[in-house]
Every structure is written in structure tokens, then in C-alpha cells.
């Protein structure tokens, strides 16, 4: 890339002179040669993602949360918490693409069906022309590592991203999705499966999923540390040990697929929340770890009662609590190594999921209500600035890349659309963002903090909710508030560059 025929010495001098010119010019002497590379005194960045995490199941966001998340809560206490963070594009795949490139996926205008990714708008691999922030960090001499068990990232689909890393730690322990990347040869038997299978799902694709999941678990899950979230966090701890010795600044991404379904935490964690008394369908000896046919069901079509829905919530809460426990261990490790004061911790999730609200269980792209779009989002400054504060800024996933690059002093690529949120720690505000805008498959969401518009991208089914009066988003008030509907729809169009695209079956038709 360097086209200029400079010697190294010249380069160093040029760099030095550049910096010096900012300072008193008198400092410049001919023999100034100090190399402007950093010592190991940070700041480093630790990015933690948990998949499928709802904000209202995190204690810091909801005091009555069913889950117990003392570690994330502590992180919020030490960091800056964003009250209403909405991932700009959902779910898993589009979100990761956005996080890594810093470019908005919304409104999925560049979607082309890309098998084996799901044939759903937004699921497109990272393009050659897109920047990847780990690559920019690597170019700047920063050690980069990423640990994940996310079946989409460890497979061939994010290979381009993995090539940018100094250390990639893939983990294939998500049994239910193992066939996605590696065929699994020792599946469970039918009776074993039926312990976990809702009768209504007895001849669906979920049978296969549970077969692999249970088969894998029987082989590899003995203790709590063998479960997926623990394995990912342990890999992160191992990386911390390694980079500590190297002395340079580092970026570590720890991206846990849990608490994604199947909701199958170590038993102790479930019992901690739901108690030992069987509940709902558990009374019939069934533990519904995969309580819907992906992506979603209506509660009544899978014939489960209120108690069973409650049970599912508790299982989800158990899985999240268990993931939180291991996040705590990772953060403790950071502390033990003396890195906590030099490391910015960035925690968020990619989307939530619906657990009985609106009569639905799972992720219904057409019903992307608060349970889907509202995620936890916390940044902990190494110096403790803004500790325990909250921000009403509509932070999102595309802000991650720019913020991390800025924190580490590396120039972002112009194509990165997000804002640099690190300015908040300097007492400034990022450029105003009066609306959040997001999309999930062929549905779009826009909100101003009080009103939320949810529609399909065609604009035929616009629903408006007043989240202040109606936090459950149950009463569509679009008919009475056409101006607000238009305003939020306009925000979507503006954000999309002027018009929203139209999707065909396999690609974007135009717009």
C-alpha cells in the first residue's frame, strides 16, 4: 500500500514531524526519531455480545427482571447505559455484518439471496468493498481476537472477517446448530428427544434440531463449564492471558450465542429461577427447550398453556443468568490481570425475542415489538467516566465500529455510518439522532422514544404505538395519528437515502 519510496527512518521522521507540528515547533530537532507506536498501557477494547438478549430481562433495565444478571448490572453501574438501544438491522446475520463493517444494513438494499444463508432480506455476507473494523485495527498494529460459538460466524460465511484476525477462537458447541457447519454423527434417539419436544412440534424440523442438540450434550456436556456460554467466555479468558503477555493494545470480541434457544442452561440455573416444582407441560415430563418452530409460532397453535409460557420464560431467564455468570468470570479475569483500568468494555445484544407477548413465541419478523428491538447496550469507560449514568441517545449496532476505532485512535473508514459514541465520555454529544430506524427481514421500525411505527417495507401495514401510554405496544393508534405515522415513515425514507427498496423473492427489485 505504501507507494512512497521512503526509508523507514524517513517515515518515522515524517510521522514524528506531523505530531510535532501540532506542538511547539521548537521541539523539532533533526535527530528526533521516536516511533509513535503505543506501549501496552491501553486502552484496549473488550466487546461482549450475547445473542437474543432482551433488555427487560436485564436487572439494570428492569428491576423486576425474571433473570438474575448481577454481572451485567455491575457493568452498567460502572459504565454508561443506553436506555433505548435498537439494533439497526436484525437478526443475527445482518447484525454481525453491521457490527463488523460499521455500515448500516438497513434497509437491506444490497440483499441478494446467498445460500446457505437464510433466504430472507438482509442475509448477505460481508462484501469485498466493505471495511471491517478488525482489519483496520490490525493494520494499525493492534492485536485482534474473536471468540464465538455463533454458528453463522464460525462457518464459511464470515470467513473474510476471520481472516482479519490475529486469533480466531471458534467453538462448535451449539449442538442444535452443529449440522450447520459440521455434520453431527451421534444424534439422540426418539425417546430422548421427546423429553424436550412439545407435542405440537413432533413432526417439524425442530425434531432434528433437538436430536443434534441432545446428542451433542450427552457427549460433551458434563459440568457447567462445558456449556456453550462458558466455553466462549473461557476462550476469552485464555486470550486475555495471551495478550497480557504481549504488552500491546488489543481488541477482543467475545460473542456468545446463548441465551439463544434451545433454552438449556445447566439445571441449577433453571431451578434457581423456576424452583423444583414442575410447571405447565413439565408436569407431563416435557421440558420445552425449543418451545417453537423456528422462527416463531402463535401460542395457541402449539397448544401450550399460560403456565408453560411462564416456564419457557423461566428457562430463558435461567440461560441468561447462567451466561451472565460467565460474563462475570470474564470481567473478573480482566480485573485480575490488571487490565480493567486500561480496557473499555462494550456490551450489547443483537436482538431479543418474543416470549408469549402478542400471543407469539419466537422471533416473528412481522411483529418486531419491544421484545425484539429493545436490547441492552452498555459501554464502560476504562477511567470510569459516566459510571452509572444513562443516555437517551438511540445507540445502535453500527456505532460499535466507529466508537471502538476512535477509542483506539484509529481512523475509521468513511463508509462506516455509525457515530463515535466515545465523545459522550468527553462530555459532548454525538450528532443528533432524533429517530431510531431499524429493519428485520421485510419489516421496518422507526421510533422517536415515545411513538413507535412498525410496518412492512411496502408500507401497507403501518401500525403506531404510544409506548408511554401503552408500553406493551398493544393498541395500534395509527388511524388517529396519521401525522405521526407520516413523520416516522419519512424518517425511514430519509434514513434509507430517499426511498425504501422493494423485495422480490430472491433479490431486491429496486427502489
Amino acid at each position, binding site marked *: 500500500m*505504501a*507507494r*512512497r519510496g*521512503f526509508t523507514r527512518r524517513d*517515515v*518515522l521522521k515524517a*510521522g*514524528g*514531524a*506531523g*505530531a*510535532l507540528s501540532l*506542538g511547539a515547533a521548537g*521541539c523539532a530537532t533533526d535527530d528526533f526519531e521516536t516511533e*509513535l*507506536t*503505543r506501549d501496552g*498501557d*491501553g486502552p484496549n477494547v473488550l466487546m461482549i455480545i450475547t445473542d437474543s438478549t432482551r433488555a427487560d430481562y436485564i436487572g439494570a433495565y428492569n428491576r423486576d427482571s425474571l433473570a438474575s444478571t448481577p454481572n451485567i448490572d455491575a457493568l452498567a453501574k460502572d459504565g454508561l447505559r443506553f436506555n433505548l438501544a435498537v439494533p439497526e438491522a436484525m*437478526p*443475527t*446475520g445482518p447484525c454481525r455484518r453491521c457490527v463488523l463493517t460499521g455500515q448500516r444494513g438497513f434497509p437491506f*438494499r*444490497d440483499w441478494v439471496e446467498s445460500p446457505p444463508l*437464510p*433466504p*430472507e432480506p438482509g442475509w448477505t455476507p460481508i462484501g469485498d468493498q466493505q*471495511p471491517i473494523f478488525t482489519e483496520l485495527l490490525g*493494520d494499525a498494529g493492534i492485536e485482534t481476537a474473536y471468540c464465538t460459538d455463533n454458528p453463522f460466524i464460525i462457518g464459511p460465511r464470515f470467513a473474510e472477517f476471520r481472516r482479519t484476525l490475529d486469533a480466531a477462537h471458534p467453538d462448535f458447541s451449539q449442538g442444535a*446448530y452443529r*449440522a*450447520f457447519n459440521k455434520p453431527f454423527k451421534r444424534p439422540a434417539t426418539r425417546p430422548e428427544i421427546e423429553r424436550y419436544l412439545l407435542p405440537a412440534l413432533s413432526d*417439524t424440523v425442530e425434531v432434528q*434440531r433437538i436430536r443434534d442438540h441432545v446428542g451433542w450434550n450427552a457427549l460433551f456436556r458434563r459440568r457447567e463449564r462445558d456449556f456453550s456460554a462458558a466455553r466462549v467466555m473461557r476462550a476469552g479468558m485464555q486470550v486475555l492471558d495471551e495478550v497480557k503477555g504481549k504488552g500491546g493494545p488489543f481488541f477482543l470480541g467475545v460473542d456468545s450465542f446463548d441465551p439463544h434457544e434451545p433454552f438449556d442452561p445447566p439445571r441449577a440455573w433453571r431451578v434457581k429461577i423456576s424452583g423444583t416444582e414442575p410447571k405447565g407441560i413439565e408436569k407431563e415430563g416435557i421440558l420445552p427447550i425449543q418451545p417453537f*418452530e423456528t422462527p416463531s409460532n402463535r401460542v395457541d397453535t402449539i397448544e401450550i398453556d399460560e403456565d408453560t409460557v411462564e416456564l419457557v420464560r423461566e428457562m430463558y431467564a435461567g440461560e441468561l443468568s447462567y451466561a451472565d455468570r460467565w460474563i462475570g468470570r470474564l470481567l473478573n479475569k480482566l480485573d485480575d490481570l490488571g487490565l480493567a483500568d486500561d480496557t473499555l468494555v462494550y456490551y450489547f445484544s443483537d436482538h431479543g425475542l418474543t416470549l408469549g407477548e402478542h400471543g407469539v413465541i419466537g422471533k416473528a419478523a412481522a*411483529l418486531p415489538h419491544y421484545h425484539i428491538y429493545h436490547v441492552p447496550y452498555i459501554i464502560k469507560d476504562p*477511567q470510569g467516566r459516566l459510571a452509572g449514568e444513562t443516555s437517551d441517545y438511540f445507540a445502535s449496532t*453500527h456505532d460499535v465500529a466507529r466508537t471502538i476505532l*476512535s477509542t483506539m485512535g*484509529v*481512523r475509521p473508514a*468513511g*463508509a462506516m455510518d*455509525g457515530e*463515535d459514541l466515545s465523545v459522550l*465520555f*468527553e462530555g459532548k454529544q*454525538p*450528532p443528533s439522532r432524533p429517530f431510531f430506524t431499524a429493519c428485520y427481514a421485510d419489516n421496518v421500525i422507526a421510533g422517536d422514544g415515545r411513538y413507535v411505527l412498525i410496518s412492512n417495507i*411496502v408500507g401497507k*401495514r403501518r401500525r403506531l404505538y404510544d409506548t408511554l401510554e401503552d408500553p406493551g405496544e398493544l393498541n395500534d393508534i395509527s388511524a388517529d395519528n396519521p401525522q405521526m405515522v407520516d413523520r416516522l415513515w419519512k424518517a425511514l425514507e*430519509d434514513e434509507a*437515502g*430517499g*426511498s*425504501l427498496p*422493494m423485495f422480490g423473492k430472491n433479490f431486491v*427489485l*429496486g*427502489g
Partner: protein
Amino acid sequence: MAERAARWTRRRLIGAGGASAASVAGLAGLRGARPPAAAAQEAGRALTNVLLIVVDGLRADFVGAYDDGDDRAETPNLDALADESLRFEHAIPESMAAMPARKALVTGMRSFPFRDWRPVDGMARLPGWTQVYDHQPALTDVLFDQDVEAVYIADNPLLETERFSGVHRAPEGRAPQVTQAERWVAPVVPGGVSGDDRSIERVVDGGIAALRELKGKSPFFLAVDAFDPAEAREPTPVFVRPSDALEQRERSEQRERETDDKVRFGRTQEVETDVSDERVRDHYAEEVKSVDREIGRLLSELDRQGLKDSTLVYFVSAGTTALGEHGVYGTAAAAGHEEVYKVAYMIRDPDGRRAGEREDFYASTHDVAPTILSHLGLTIPGKMEGEDLTAFFDDDDPPPRRHFTSCAGDQVIVGDRRYVLVSDFEGAEKRLYDTDPPTHEDEHGDEDDFSPRDEDEDVSREEAEQVRQMWARVVQDAGGTIPKFGPDGPIRPREEADENDDDEVDEGRLDRDDDLNFSGQ
């Protein structure tokens, strides 16, 4: 891979305060960012200023410093500036017409492919011709927020809105008049413009007065934005004979009435002229010469005020001009030659870094805002899409830009070091030009297979694969689709078909059977 000897952004260095001291002392003071101004004061130094000079339609090959062996250009002042600047040899504006190009310049966002166009009263009813929207960032806004004095001297109506009331100021009593506004109404007809006021003279007068006023108010930002030499005033009769222009206008208005449901792009006009290319070029060169003289006047004033060593000078031409290439004349015209699109573009670092050097990066108008903000140590809004070109001064490289894309009127343009593809928005009439055709010496195959190729020749038939690849780049840079326009803005496909769609969307779909492979989200 370049040595990343200094990978920090200037924001970080300034924010850290005493960066030079820190670098000597093992970077002890790096953490703990402070506001730039405060940190700078602490370190006992002044932040630098920025002087942005914008002209219109100045082709690089008519500036002496871009020496192409053609000695027609006489631009001593620009040449002197180039000697002290980093010069971009392949600078191509991301959109070519005056308004969209300036919008890109102010917002740092691309105007290409005009997807956000809505007709605006008082402006040409052409895609791309809109004001800066409220949801877009603006260079001047960011500067204002950060207490940087910002003055923008222009005689075009771009900043004539409420939003810029605090920015678009000229010193008392010297406010330039908007005399060229009428051109905005019908920019495709370049004829008939008269008047004795020269755009460049007026804005340079304003700029000189502003410099005197701004001295001592460091850091400041001053933009001097002129319409010249585009549609060069003096040689106008050469471009289009007035009577032709009138006819053209009538014809186009007629056409507009006839097809009022279809939007009229700025079509490249076919104009009959009895003037030779050479005369057009001579007139244009003459015009460039006078622009050069005015720039010289402004830069001398900068010198006289003692601001030269503390002011970054950013010189850019926002548009370009075709001078008979492929029979095309005028601004915003699509021709196959890359030369037509290359504009003069240089940055003079106050510390003289990279003076007299060159870069072949495809610098563009949308890089201006992020580069200036970065130079001032300010955070670049994420919506700005341009690259931070200060990287070049820090021996870093911005992300590679392997091709350029742009649009002019009803044409999109994409090019790389060898090919230029020009097409209408719909992609129906694609023309491919090989600007660097292989010669006999390049050919190692059978002598008989070699067919000599002219760079004026459309080779889209022979090079179908190349056409496909170039078109894919246009689509990619446009975000995935290229918009189509109706009379009121972009139109979405199949909107009528969807009227018949079943409204029962959600409930039925929630229980659809999804393939296992597709359902792992």
C-alpha cells in the same frame, strides 16, 4: 503495507494534549482526552485554520501543475500552490452538476445516485437538485457546534436557507449578490448568460474582507466558493450560440409539457456550432487564467495577513467541463474520456508536509468535509461518507478506492485506471471506453488476432464481461439498486402490483415451514 508510524487520528492527538511531549516521554499523557481548544491552549499553540477554495468546472488538464505536456494552461498561482500542496491527480467529483456536487461538499455525503431527490421550487427540476436536508450533517454545522468561526462566501443559493443563516455570512456591506441564480433554473442551457459581475471576483473580494476580519479568531473556517470557470462567461457564445440556446430552451420546455409524467434529466444537449474545438479550448483556457489570477489575489492576502503558516488551504473544483470530447460541451456532460472528469484538487498543509507530492487516490467532493473536520481535530459525523484524507499527511492510507463512480445529468459514470463506462440510469445504453488500449507491443498472441483500438471507440460489444463488472460497481456504490425517478422523486417498483397484495401478512406467516438451514437466526 505502510508503516503505521503515526496511526492516531488528529482528534486523538489534539485531544490528548501535548502529543509531541507525550511521544518523547513514552506517551505518558495519551489518555484523558480534553476538548481540542483547551488542550491546545494548554500546550501553548494555536489550532490551525482552514481556507477552502471551491471553483467550478476547472479541469485538471488545464492547470499547469498537472502538466500533461499541453502548454495551453497558464496558471502561475495554482502552480505555486501545487508546489506547496499534496496534489490529487485523479480527483473526480462524485456527482458532476453544480448543486449535487456542492451538496456533497457541504454534507460529506454522496449525492450519487440522487435517490433523495425531491423537486424543489426555484431549482432545476432535475434529479440531484435539492437543498441540504435537515437530516443531513453539514460541515458548517459541526464547526459551529464546536465554536469554530465559519464563514462561507458564495454566490450560489445552496446555503440560502434558514439552517445556514448563521454560517453563510459575508462581511458587512460586502455581501455578494446572487447573480447566477438564474442558471440554476435551467442549467442545461448554458447560453444567454450575461452581466459584468464575475463570480470569482466577487467572492474573492468577499473572501479577502473575511480574512481580514477573521484574523486573530483562530481557529476559523473560511470557504470561498465561486461558479467560475464553469460555463465560462466570456466564451459563452462559443459554447452555444444565443439563438440556439433560446431554441433549445423552448424545445425542452415543450418536451417537458408533453411528457409531464416523466422526469426530464439534464440531457446532454446536441448543439450545432460552427466553432472549432480548439477555439473553445482557447477560450476556456483564457477563463482559467482569470480564475487563477483571482485565486492568487486571495492567497496573497492570506500571506499578507500572516496566516499562511497556520492555515490549511484546500483547493477543489466541484464540477467539470467537457470541451468537445465525443462532441460534448458543457458541465455535467457525460463523455468517455477520463480527462473530462478529472478536476484540480490539492491540499496545502500548514506545516508543508507532502509539499509538491502527488497521490493517485480518486479524491472527491465528499471527502472535503471529513478531511477538514479531521484536520481540526473534530469528530466526523458517521453519516459523512467521504474519507479522511489527512491520512495521507500522516503516512497512512485511507481505505482503497479502486474505481470512481459519479453521475452527470441522466448518465452514470464508472471508471478505473483503464476503462470508463458511461450509461443511462436504467442501464439500457451502456458505452465502454478503453482509455489505455493495448498496443502491438503489449500483444504476445498471434499478430493477426490483434485489432487496433481507438480510445474514442465504444467497445461495450467486445467487452461484455468488462461492462458487466463495471456496471456491478455502479450498483454496488449506489447501495444495491439504481433509482428510477418519477416527477416527484424516486419511484419504487411494483407499487401498483402491490395494491392487489393480500393484506393478511403476519398471522399466516408466523407458522410457515422454514427449512432447517434457513431458520437458525
